[in-house]
């Protein structure tokens, strides 16, 4: 079995169990299907514990699964790979390194020589608006700026697939809106395929081509909503009646799961 040739990420009938210390098995994902086409921006949204992070780690190659197939750019995932990069909720910057060394981290790991990796890192710092901060330490930056560093670090390895696990959830609401538009700006200049996890419905709709709604116990995909808002998106998009409508639709689906956890299972 093989996925569509143009799929950036293809997850097919994937199930995953966690085995806890006392040997108890819990099913985290139940036969999940999900496709991210090349150049597409796809968000996953769903209640806490529905397996979003689990899925992202599997695509990232740092977590295995029990059944099904996970492919990136048509190749079965066997571990981390140079065509993928991740942006983390906690930023995961190395506090003892300067900004430029943090941005260069992935390149260093890949054996790129220092002058060259600094060159690449400088370019990316500029594109995320931190050109003047290469010698700063992460603790000297605000949360929003730290995540810009996290984004630059991921982009530095020239990935084709970008994985983002609630990248803006630790950032204040206003800065977050700015980061969303900046992310779209950067993304639109590349052919990056993005898998983006969030809990914020407006964020999912604003950014994405598709919003994947997941349910819990065990984690499964309930619905995929196509976002037909035109691009480029900007502040006007947020006031577009279609935007409001789609956001409302996502909320309708999620609200049911939160008030009645079994509702979506029956549906």
């Amino acid at each position, binding site marked *: 079995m093989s996925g569509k040739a143009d799929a950036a990420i293809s997850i097919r009938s994937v199930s995953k169990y966690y085995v806890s210390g006392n040997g108890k098995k819990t099913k985290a994902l139940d036969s999940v299907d999900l496709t991210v086409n090349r150049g597409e921006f796809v968000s996953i949204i769903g209640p806490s514990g529905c397996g979003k992070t689990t899925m992202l*780690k599997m695509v990232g190659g740092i977590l295995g699964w029990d059944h099904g197939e996970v492919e990136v750019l048509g190749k079965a995932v066997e571990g*981390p790979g*140079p065509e993928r990069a991740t942006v*983390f909720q906690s930023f*995961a910057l190395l506090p*003892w390194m300067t900004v430029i060394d943090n941005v260069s*981290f992935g390149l260093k790991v890949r054996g790129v020589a220092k002058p060259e990796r600094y060159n690449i890192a400088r370019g990316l710092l500029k594109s995320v608006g931190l050109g003047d901060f290469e010698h700063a330490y992460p603790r000297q930056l605000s949360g929003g700026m730290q995540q810009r560093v996290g984004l630059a670090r991921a982009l530095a390895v020239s990935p084709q697939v970008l994985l983002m696990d609630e990248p803006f959830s630790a950032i204040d609401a206003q800065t977050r809106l700015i980061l969303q538009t900046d992310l779209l700006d950067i993304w639109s200049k590349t052919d990056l395929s993005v898998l983006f996890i969030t809990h914020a419905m407006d964020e999912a709709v604003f950014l994405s081509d598709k919003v994947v709604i997941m349910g819990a116990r065990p984690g499964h995909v309930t619905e995929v909503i196509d976002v037909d808002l035109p691009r480029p998106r900007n502040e006007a998009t947020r006031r577009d009646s279609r935007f409001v409508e789609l956001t409302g639709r996502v909320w309708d689906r999620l609200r049911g799961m939160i008030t009645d956890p079994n509702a979506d299972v029956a549906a």
Partner: protein
Amino acid sequence: MTLSLGLGTRKYGPFLLSLVVLAAIWEIVGRTANILTLPPLSSVLVAFGKLWSSGAVTAPLFDSTMALLTGLAISLTLGSAIGIGMGMSRVIDVAIGPYVKAGLSAPLIAFVPVFLMIFGIGSETRIATVVAFSIFIVATNAATAMRTIDDRLLEMGRSFGASRWAIFRDIRLPAGAPYFVAGLRLGVARGVKGLINGEVLIAIIGLGGLVKKYGTVFSMDQLYAVILLIVLYASVAVGGVTLLSNLLVKDKANTA
């Protein structure tokens, strides 16, 4: 200038005052009471000066320092390796953790006679004593350094395809630096303690040997002079390492 002087006075003033008072009491009691075991401070200081200028302490000081440095070097390499192993592997931790815990609190001075029998009266015995006193705290801190690492940083490293070695070198070691340095500092303090204790017990070598030598002939001012020297020696060793480590981890300490 005046400001820094003022701050210095506020910081060290009370200590200097208590030092002067203590010295004065010592001098007065020493002169008036005229007891053999408490010579006045002034004669101790004179003895100290003589001890220093006569060169009687140069050789013991050098010997002790060499033993200390050798012992510490062994503790640092071996202790760090053991601690890193314990911190990273559950099996190693269960296998040797109990010995390290025991060694941390055991009265290790009891082993000096054993070392003496194995190594004889030479620097090896003193080195072994320094190692015994310092290695466990170094190992304990190295293990803590490995255990307290933020899993999210390790995950980040793996997601970029970093090898186990790269993760160790670029994430685990620098993240654990403050703990390694704390281990070093405590290791030096304990090592000095072990060194002098061992030397006093062995009785004929190094600074501790001098204590025994002057003590047995009731040469009290010389005895106090040597003790003074030992206290200063320990303070300089620990102070030096503290200073050094503060410089080393200046950026790394205030990270998390």
